[in-house]
């Protein structure tokens, strides 16, 4: 199938799913009621839009990281963004900042960015970025921060539940404000990654090979890491840590399209958005009226699906 046709089909499918999912929930309404319902406009729509954006962000960044680091096991959180954000959120919850608009979000964003900045500082030698050091520092710092968070939780028993719930990720409190904050970063970042998708292919062949084939490797790498970091930091700050999506969606897409990032990246946008939308819809409808944490659902639904795909495509791995 030609690429534009397939992308168009996926986009239509995603839009249809967004409308369909907005009809589901505790409160049901007809088409007429929908247009006038504040539940539809103020609760469900921002939530659906945000979940699609976050799904797309995580998948696209996962695809980019897997190529930049040439490692199939990397996900968007590998540089410690998630743990950094969790630390900020924990501090905000303990300090009682939930009451303010984006009180937790802004703290999480700040600590997430500081964490990654710290890691980049350590891993840059001159003007080059050493990717293995980058990965190792990220993993190590994640452990350190997780330990600090556990320590904070022990000291503040009463806040433990809300901290844990935040780290499992949820779109329950999404508002148009979140959408407005996340949307510009997501749009700019997705465009940046799309724009560099050919370079990602060459990076996958090794950075010296890429350099030899005309890619300004360090420049491209730095630019991509800058934008993906911002995207993921905003996404995590708005909804907490939702794992698995960024790791697995790009792989699922790759099983169908092959390794060419000029297909993997655009398809990941829609497949990631669609997958997150489905998971979030399940999270809020399965146990109505209570909610499941979407972060656990993504793995619960995604892992068997991925293992099935791996099994079916045995020959290609």
């Amino acid at each position, binding site marked *: 199938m030609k690429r534009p046709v397939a992308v168009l089909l996926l986009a239509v499918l995603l839009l249809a799913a967004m409308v369909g999912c907005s009809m589901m929930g505790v409160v049901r309404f007809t088409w007429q009621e929908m247009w006038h319902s504040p539940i539809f406009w103020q609760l469900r729509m921002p939530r659906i839009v945000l979940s699609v954006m976050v799904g797309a962000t995580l998948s696209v960044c996962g695809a980019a990281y897997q190529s930049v680091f040439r490692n199939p096991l990397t996900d968007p959180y590998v540089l410690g963004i998630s743990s950094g954000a969790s630390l900020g959120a924990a501090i905000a919850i303990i300090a009682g900042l939930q009451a303010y608009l984006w009180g937790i979000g802004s703290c999480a964003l700040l600590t997430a960015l500081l964490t990654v900045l710290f890691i980049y500082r350590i891993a840059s030698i001159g003007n080059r970025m050493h990717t293995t050091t980058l990965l190792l520092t990220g993993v190590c710092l994640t452990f350190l921060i997780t330990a600090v968070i556990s320590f904070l939780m022990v000291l503040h028993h009463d806040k433990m539940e809300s901290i844990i719930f935040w780290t499992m990720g949820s779109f329950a409190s999404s508002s148009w404000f979140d959408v407005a904050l996340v949307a510009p970063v997501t749009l700019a970042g997705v465009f940046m990654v799309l724009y560099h998708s*050919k370079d990602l292919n*060459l990076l*996958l062949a090794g950075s*010296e090979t890429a*350099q030899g084939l*005309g890619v*300004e*490797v360090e420049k491209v790498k730095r630019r991509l890491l800058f934008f993906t970091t911002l995207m993921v930091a905003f996404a995590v700050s708005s909804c907490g840590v939702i794992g698995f999506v960024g790791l697995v969606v790009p792989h699922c897409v790759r099983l169908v399209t092959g390794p060419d990032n000029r297909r993997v990246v655009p398809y990941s946008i829609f497949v990631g958005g669609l997958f997150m939308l489905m998971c979030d819809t399940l999270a809020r409808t399965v146990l109505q009226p209570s909610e499941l944490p979407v972060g656990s659902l993504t793995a619960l639904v995604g892992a068997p699906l991925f293992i099935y795909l791996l099994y079916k495509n045995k020959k290609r791995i």
Partner: protein
Amino acid sequence: MITLSHLSCCFGEKQILHDINFHVGEGDFYAILGANGCGKTTLLRCIAGLLTPNSGEVNISPSGGEATERPIASFSARELAQRIAFVRQHAQTDFEFSGFETVLMGRNPYQRRLQNESQADWDIVEQCMRHTNTWHLRFSRPHEMSGGELQRVMIARALAQSTPIILLDEPTSNLDIAHQFDIMELLCDINAREHKTILLVVHDLNLALQYCPQALLLHDKGILAHGATSEVLAPDNIRTAFGVEAEPQQGHLSLRPMTKQL
């Protein structure tokens, strides 16, 4: 075509190359020879612009011919990739691009971002793959190819870059003797037919003698000898560079270890 002037290169404290001055003309086919760790690969990487020398510079002609040379530092990665193709020692196999896609990457320096390949690119790729006898591998994944096949695909990609200069780092190591001849014949053919300048790091002295008209012998951070391969590979030079006794026999070198003086 390529001029090295006062080129010096160190890794940390360790000096690898010291004050190298050398000129390669258009259409030359050089074997770069020397013992392990004498800086052959370093030299090649400096010429390819992958390594910045500590002092001195590498100059190449912006367009074919001997016209005004410019230091490679003044070229962008893209411009350099239109002039120099580099075939690495270990062809990497941990990605799943098909043979055709791999060779097509060689066209990257001529494409804009977000732009698809043109018919011209496809034609060039097909031509290069047919020339290197890899057209039947166009749908194969790297892990389905043998070492020799993969190496030929990498050479096809270098050809697809349409550069006046091709650098190769030990393209024949890890290959059996038949495939070594195969690769060398192919390179001779490319050199003769397309008049490309080729610099090749190679360990097998006889292979160099047989196929490369010129050679550059590195020893002790500098150039020990350069010129016609048969003269560079004089027994004295081989003894100095490798500590090996050599005896020329009808265009062939018979090599044996140096007898230890007790």
